[in-house]
């Protein structure tokens, strides 16, 4: 049985690991904003290069990153596949009688580059962080307390329920269950998930009871409150300036 971890393991440099989690989250937001404002090809390639640089600098493991990128590429390809044929513009080439426009190809490329750059940066900046730290960041950014508590408890129980699910799967395997495309499989999965739900709810009731008997009054105490240092200001400023560079390039060269 493998235990489940949400975040991917990265060999972060120590200065990066010591940063306030809010810095990392805000940097990811600024990166996304910059990417959404870019619409010229070359500045976007620069932004993607920046994202790649981040993944390398922050010690991400390529195998994991590529696995996660591939999972999201399916939708991406589906979205941009028809753009060359549906965007009006100068015809470039034709497949099976459909004319592809030059502008459409460019737009498809822009969206592909943008999406990949954002995912890479997000995984590098935030994806390697412990989920609990992300919860601290959310709390520190003024997200309502109940929502943060919901987040923290969800993170806690994903691991527990994943193990529970694995246990149930092992039990099914021991009874010679083989998944296929048939009603038996789907009904069995339904029963598996139903069992998981029933056990989750029982667990939720035990947790409620446990919280009550420890005098829970609606306030959770975060163990290590986040603290903003001067280096956080410096890193965030530097990151924002860096992410703005492609935008300025676009501004000067293309004028939008």
């Amino acid at each position, binding site marked *: 049985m493998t235990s489940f971890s949400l975040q991917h393991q990265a060999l972060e440099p120590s200065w990066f690991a010591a940063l306030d989690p809010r810095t990392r989250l805000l940097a990811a937001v600024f990166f996304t904003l910059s990417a959404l404002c870019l619409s010229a090809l070359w500045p976007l390639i620069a932004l993607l290069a920046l994202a790649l640089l981040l993944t390398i600098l922050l010690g991400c493991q390529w195998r994991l990153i590529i696995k996660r990128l591939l999972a999201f590429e399916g939708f991406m390809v589906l979205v941009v596949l*028809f753009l060359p044929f549906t965007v009006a513009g100068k015809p470039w080439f034709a497949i099976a009688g459909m004319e592809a426009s030059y502008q459409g190809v460019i737009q498809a490329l822009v969206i592909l580059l943008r*999406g990949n750059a954002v995912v890479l940066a997000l995984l590098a900046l935030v994806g390697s962080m412990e989920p609990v730290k992300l919860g601290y960041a959310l709390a520190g950014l003024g997200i309502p307390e109940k*929502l943060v508590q*919901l987040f923290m408890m969800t993170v806690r129980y994903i691991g527990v329920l994943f193990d529970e699910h694995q246990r149930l799967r092992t039990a099914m395997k021991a009874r010679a269950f083989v998944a296929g495309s048939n009603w038996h499989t789907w*009904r069995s999965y339904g029963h598996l998930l139903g069992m998981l739900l029933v056990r989750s709810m029982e667990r939720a009731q035990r947790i409620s009871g446990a919280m009550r008997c420890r005098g829970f009054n*609606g306030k959770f105490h975060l163990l290590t409150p986040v603290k903003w240092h001067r280096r956080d200001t410096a890193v965030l400023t530097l990151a924002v300036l860096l992410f703005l560079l492609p935008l300025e390039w676009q501004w000067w060269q293309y004028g939008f």
Partner: protein
Amino acid sequence: MAHIPEGVLSAPVLITGALVTTAAVAYAIRKLDYERLPQAAVLAACFFVASLVAVPAGPSSVHLLLNGLMGLMLGWLAVPALLVALLLQAVFFGFGGLLVLGVNCLNIALPALLSYYLVSPWLNKALLANNRRQLFMSGMVAGAIGVAGTGALVCLALVLTGPQYLAAGKIILVTYLPLLVVESLITGAIVGFVAKVAPELLQRQLPQPLVAEESHATN
């Protein structure tokens, strides 16, 4: 497939999605009392884990959404629970993104609320009558509402961004068909199972007893 990646949608769509989601979450959070916090969290985790399971469907496999079922079991609380699950998927798995989170949450939470309002009364009646067939059917309809609603909203978000996405939207709708079939069957099976084993979980507005004696140190 229910997660629209960052960088596709236009700014007005993103902003509308974010505003509506914020309003819905704010409303739901007001309703969330601390008694039900563990319940919402454990269910959010449960649905997160369920979404990791690849279910065979014909030549390929699908990942369940289960938003219809989530609406049945959580009502309005499904909105913040889904938001948390989607944030985790965006940040740690790269599905969706931070700025598109509002739209993605709306796409999945709105059908959940729809199934809550449309199917819950029917489900309650079936529970009272203990009609197995009706129970299965109501689960099936909830699953179908969840998937079809999400598919339609994803398509709508794309088309509102620009008419050039109409073709892609249609193809995406077609890719939802196997999920629609599998999810409605599985949701039907889940509702049937839960109705047999722990019917109190499906009953709406029934006070959940808090059993303090059962608390263990392991929690």
